[in-house]
């Protein structure tokens, strides 16, 4: 079985698995990293949103063989460590606004939110209503309004 090596949450990992298995299942089924959730498997619900080298990606749509040994995958479990704290500012904002209901989509929501704030900051502008409208992560509990409030608050502290 082919070996695939990449980095997850700051650690180098090697897995023995066919190269076409998508990263989501490598994380969840083989590495036991269960923060990224399955919601559709076709990159439309965004529940598995994680970061690859700091950008938002959906592991359900990435064959593990597409990763390089230097590629850094960050899941919700590793988000706080990227800022060297117990919680990332976006996670703190999520707590402040009591955003989660069932919580199933929330790891993906937070990872998407962090990437959005970074992207907007890189463009040298503030978050707009259109940016928030453009978030595609589904929350079937419908906590969308608190998500918007928390992103604005989290962005202030990032």
């Amino acid at each position: 079985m082919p070996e695939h090596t990449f980095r997850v949450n700051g650690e180098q990992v090697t897995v023995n698995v066919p190269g076409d298995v998508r990263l989501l299942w490598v994380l969840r089924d083989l590495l036991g990293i269960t923060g990224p959730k399955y919601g559709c498997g076709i990159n439309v619900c965004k529940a598995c949103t994680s970061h690859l080298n700091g950008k938002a990606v959906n592991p359900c749509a990435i064959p593990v063989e597409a990763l390089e040994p230097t590629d850094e995958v960050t899941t919700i479990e590793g988000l706080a460590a990227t800022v060297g704290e117990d919680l990332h500012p976006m996670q703190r904002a999520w707590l402040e606004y009591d955003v989660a209901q069932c919580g199933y989509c929330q790891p993906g929501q937070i990872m998407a939110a962090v990437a959005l704030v970074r992207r907007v900051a890189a463009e040298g502008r503030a978050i707009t209503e259109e940016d928030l409208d453009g978030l595609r992560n589904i929350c079937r509990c419908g906590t969308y309004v608190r998500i918007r409030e928390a992103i604005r608050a989290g962005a202030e502290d990032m």
Partner: protein
Amino acid sequence: MTGSTGEAPDRGIGRRRFLGYVLAAPTLVAAAELAPAPAAAAPLPSAELTELLDLNDLMTAAALPTANLIAVEVRQDGTVAFALPRAEVGQGITTSTAMLIAEELSVPLDRVRVTLADARPELVFNQLTGGSNTTIATYGPIRVAAAIARQRLLTTAAAELRTDVAALTIENGTVRDRSGRSLDIGALAVKAASARTERVSVELAPRSAFTVIGRPHSRIDALDAVTGRKKFTMDLDVPDAKPTMVCRPPTINGTVRSVANLAEVRAMPGVTNVVTIATGVAVRAETFGQCVDAVRALRVTWGPGTAQGKSDASVLRELAAAELPMGLRPPTPVVEGAFTFHFRSNSALEPNCAIADVRADRAEIWSSLKSPIVAQQAIAAKLRLPVSKVTVHVTEGGGSFGRKLFFDAALEAAEVSQKIGKPVKLMWHRADDSRQGRTHPMATSRVRVSYLGDTVLSYKQRHTSVSTDLGHGLGEIITALAARLPVGDMGFAQTFFHLSQTMSYRFGVSSQLLNETDKDFNTGSMRNVYSPDVTCARELIVDQLAGRMGKDPYRFRRDFLRDDRSRAVLQKVAEAGGWGRSMAAGTAQGIAFHAEYKSVSAALVEIDCRPATVNRPIRDGVTGPRVTRVVFAVDVGLAVNPRGLEAQMMGGIMDGIALALTSSLHLRDGYFLEASWDNYFYTRQWNTPPDLQVIVMPSTSDEPGGAGELAVAASMAAVACAYGRATGTMPTSFPINHGTLSFTPKPTVPPIPPSPADGLDHAR
């Protein structure tokens, strides 16, 4: 509750005292009977049924003859543990439960550990999460158990400190005397334990003394949720429970005739087992990704399904044929309307899933289940095992919306595990969840109101629906009690309908009837069940009626509502939302009211139906009219956790928007076209109202009402009314975009789509 009726559990004890137990245990365990009866009201033979007894009374009463104990345990580490016999699926009941315990026991919220109880068959009807009943049914018993624990801790501390109980206070988990000596409850946990079970009485804190109940608290599982530590069923590490998926038929409930390439698929990478089961062909593999590939590779010959050849149009014809007659048209002026509500999906974001480990002589199941006892019984029957040999663990659920009342995945997982002799972690693909999962049945609602001058003489509503499957236990509760109700020989669906539909307006002679037809579909109670459709139809007609009488829609409702509590929420949204303010052409306000679960609610909505808004481009999504503002007022009697209540209202509002505008299933040739979230248009960020205000009214009662489903009906109705006023045409078919298919249907063979491989191209 008072002690004067002779029916309450505090008979002979005196006002505000309740009975409970200290159980024989190594540490302090205090208990109470779940769901004591509310003071029984004398039945009024001619009263509207919902005034006599609503669904929650029925569910509460059902618990009585079979009630059993729920127990609060004080541990040596100073924490307090409670296993809640209900399912947490996002509605926040673990948090509100912890608050009840924190209140009566005077411990900090973060010392209360609420877990979900395994299936407890001795609870019979009393482990069902539904009907927005959890807080109504558990509010008293949980507090009684906690109060008994507190009382016992105080008497134990008094003995330890050689002082009088009256000289002690308990605060923040610490007992203190007047001289400042203190004992943590953890240090008292063993000494306060009882060697034998004792029945004791206790007094509950009055509402005026509450310091936890009624104040906003964040969810107790919030930190786990935002760090990815919260464990759902598929996140559990059960040894050797490997990923499992099922290859399903191309039409609803089709059956396996034969499989052409079993050996080939069994040899695919990672695949450990392939086996035919009742609902399809199950595949177990090292990863779900390999399950997807194997399911797609299977070549199965399928037998016809239960809805073979059926379509939206044919079901509509069935409904028309089943509609009850409206009767003779009265000689007075009438307002009439006929409305259609299409199939909808109650798919949660966490798909149907379960873990099963079935051995020769026993079975263990893990799943988020709102009716775990019925699940346990059904699984035991399927496996031919005694019920006592089937352990059912209730896990935290990733949403429900009615979906988790059933246990379809748990039953399948048990079957697969038994057949292959290995543990399985079974999950439905999203396409399965959407196409073969439970639905809110298609329905029509016809309304006729007669009036004369300023008086409404009669209101008649005939609701006709594809059958709603209530075979998850709630039906059995109603069946068991139906004989005691003044409803004759109605079936339980009709009884459920009656009990949930109240007539809140003074509309003279009122009658609302349900007729059901066609049991060929996989249906279930979707959040708020019949009420969103029934209320939407009624409120649209109320707008018409107001117009006919030359009255403003808000003032008309206010004038005809039956009581002050109802008028107060309506008035609140009208004031806070600036009802009647001038709006641009193509935009409008709508207002609606709904009462259920001993609660009242009102919604004011503003909608923008202008072409520039309706046609704004969103990839793979439906934009359509945008709800730009919602003001929602709710009175649940007593709000245990206002922050959680606001969250439930917000979620219900998003459901209401989706039901009115965007989300439905299209039935064609015996299957639903929708196969994923890019086909089924539940409310998304681009549909979310930019301005949302939820107003929790001051408590009007000592008892909480239900909230989990409450907001859907008034929200859907207000959106529909706003849409009608903005466009000048009353909508009659829901959701309003159903006539436009906004996606290309995915194939049905193979039944699930391939996993995309272009994820890196979309990094952003």
